[in-house]
């Protein structure tokens, strides 16, 4: 792709396509948008000219090195234009280009456009062609992108796809540990952790992992009780089973411990009321803790504990008072 302009930014002066000898035979094609009054901004005119030449090569279906070069230039102007990417793939297929070099090209674009669907799709298309050998470098790349934005949905989707299609699970749980150490509120990392413990071919699945995961999660909750993600994760570890979380003392204990310090922690109260509804027999200590809470209505202390917890939730989560009122009706 060693033609005059575009790709090697900075050093060479940008030459408008209309002044390039290698494009002398191309007749530019404008966007058919109806009449438009022209107000001149120079960058915009360059952009328009590039797109007019792109359209000419595209509609002629030209699969040549200069067409490939031109798609790169159009992408630099507007990486969101999916038609340009489509055409680039057609040209790549026709020219039998070096796909690793293409991966480097798209990685550069992705770094400055981390939330662009086309870019990530192009990467997936390439990775699929490159096969399992590409797994490690792709994981390295998403790691780099997630270091900048740890919740980038596109990067996570790509990483999960690579794991499932090409492999590279070896250090994934450790990676989740690392991300959660950096930010325990990162819901994407909790989600990834769930994928790893349920789907990694190296770990033995959810049931085998449950015990150690409960310990890990309880610890994360104790460090930051007002964090929605680990509470949901903890419930997810039992996946709809009503008996197991009630029988596991660690679950009701974490609720109790948190509530002793922070009597309005919604997630602890919520899990507790779930456990009570599923048949937990509250210890005297738990009962005492709830009944001594300042939000606990003295009149409710003679009703069952689940109802009492629900009425506390109605008071300390006013934004969702309707939800808790409804929940209360499910208890009788």
């Amino acid at each position, binding site marked *: 792709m060693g033609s005059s302009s575009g790709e090697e930014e900075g050093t060479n002066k940008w030459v408008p396509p209309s002044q390039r000898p290698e494009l002398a035979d191309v007749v530019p094609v404008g966007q058919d*948008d109806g009449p438009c009054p022209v107000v001149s901004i120079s960058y915009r005119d360059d952009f328009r000219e590039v797109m007019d030449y792109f359209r000419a090569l595209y509609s002629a279906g030209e699969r040549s090195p200069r067409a490939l070069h031109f798609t790169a230039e159009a992408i630099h102007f507007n990486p969101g234009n999916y038609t340009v990417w489509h055409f680039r793939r057609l040209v790549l297929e026709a020219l039998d280009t070096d796909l690793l070099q293409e991966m480097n090209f798209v990685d550069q674009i992705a770094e400055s456009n981390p939330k662009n669907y086309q870019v990530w799709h192009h990467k997936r298309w390439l990775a699929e062609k490159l096969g399992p050998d590409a797994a490690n470098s792709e994981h390295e790349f998403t790691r780099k992108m997630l270091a900048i934005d740890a919740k980038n*949905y596109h990067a996570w989707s790509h990483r999960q796809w690579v794991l499932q299609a090409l492999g590279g699970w070896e250090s994934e749980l450790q990676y989740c540990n690392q991300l959660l150490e950096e930010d325990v509120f990162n819901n994407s990392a909790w*989600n990834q952790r769930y994928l790893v413990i349920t789907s990694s071919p190296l770990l033995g699945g959810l049931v085998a992992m449950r015990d150690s995961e409960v310990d890990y999660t309880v610890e994360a909750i104790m460090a930051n009780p007002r964090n929605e993600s680990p509470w949901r994760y903890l419930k997810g570890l039992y996946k709809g089973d009503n008996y197991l979380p009630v029988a596991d003392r660690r679950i009701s204990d974490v609720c109790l411990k948190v509530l002793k310090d922070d009597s309005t922690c919604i997630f602890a109260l919520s899990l507790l009321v779930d456990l009570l509804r599923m048949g937990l027999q509250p210890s005297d200590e738990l009962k005492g803790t709830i009944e001594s809470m300042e939000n606990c209505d003295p009149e409710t202390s003679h009703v069952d504990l689940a109802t009492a917890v629900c009425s506390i939730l109605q008071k300390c989560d006013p934004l969702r008072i309707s939800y808790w009122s*409804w929940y209360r009706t499910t208890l009788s």
Partner: protein
Amino acid sequence: MGEPGELAADEHVRYIVTAEKKKDSFESLVMEHLRLSGAYWGLTTLDLLHKLQAVDAREVVDWIMSCYHPESGGFAGNVGHDPHVLYTLSAVQVLCLFDRLDVLDVDKIADYVAGLQKEDGSFAGDIWGEVDTRFSYISICTLSLLHRLHKINVEKAVEYIVSCKNLDGGFGAMPGGESHAGQIFCCVGALAITGSLHHVDRDLLGWWLCERQCRDGGLNGRPEKLADVCYSWWVLSSLIMIDRVHWIDKEKLAKFILNCQDKENGGISDRPDNAVDIYHTYFGVAGLSLMEYPGVKPMDPAYALPLDVVNRIFLRKQQ
């Protein structure tokens, strides 16, 4: 911030109508490839505000049809671009607004969409095969509006969507993908249209969705993210479809949306005091519509079109 006040409907109409005409702005050059979606956002908003007649229906329909690819049966985002299901749905939705589905070769379009279903039931967005639950929704919604759902394997399509369900009751872009309000709308919408909502754990998902309401009254799309006007639509419509919308504080949400208006020049932004755009203008007005805001037409939460438009399509169906 001050008092949010009322919906500046006239200003929003003016903002949309003039944005449509600014074909030469830099923004419109960058947006060139998705003009069709822009048209859907703008025109649906106009219709919700009872002002669809502010544009020339014939001109719009002619332009939409110039984005059609007769060889494939799909629509492109603009004249001369490649077809994609995203823009095919936008085209069909806009034609629904104007009651002009008669201009379409319905079976050709339905075959294009149905042809993108994969063996596992999922859908690709175009011939390049990008798979995402967004495309499941788009395909199912398009086919249903065209009365051609029977052209796909609905059972498999539903099975794939259900395979994207997470421990929190939400849905992601693919199996294992994190729950995200936008993807939840797509999955719940597709399940609603195909009569498969029994696959949703309504109470669990409803709680996750109402946990999206932040202290400022706005809704976010994932835990620990900032509230944003566009999630008013994704979250609210999902809550309505699963019959749990009474779990959020609507008054606070309406205030949040109204606070994001540019009351002078029209338009709505993602958050208070940010720059407005047509996308968030649409989602803001649509969100208010779902909360029965006075003066705004009611919206269908699954088809993302005004209710009267959807009724016209399904009540008339006699073919």
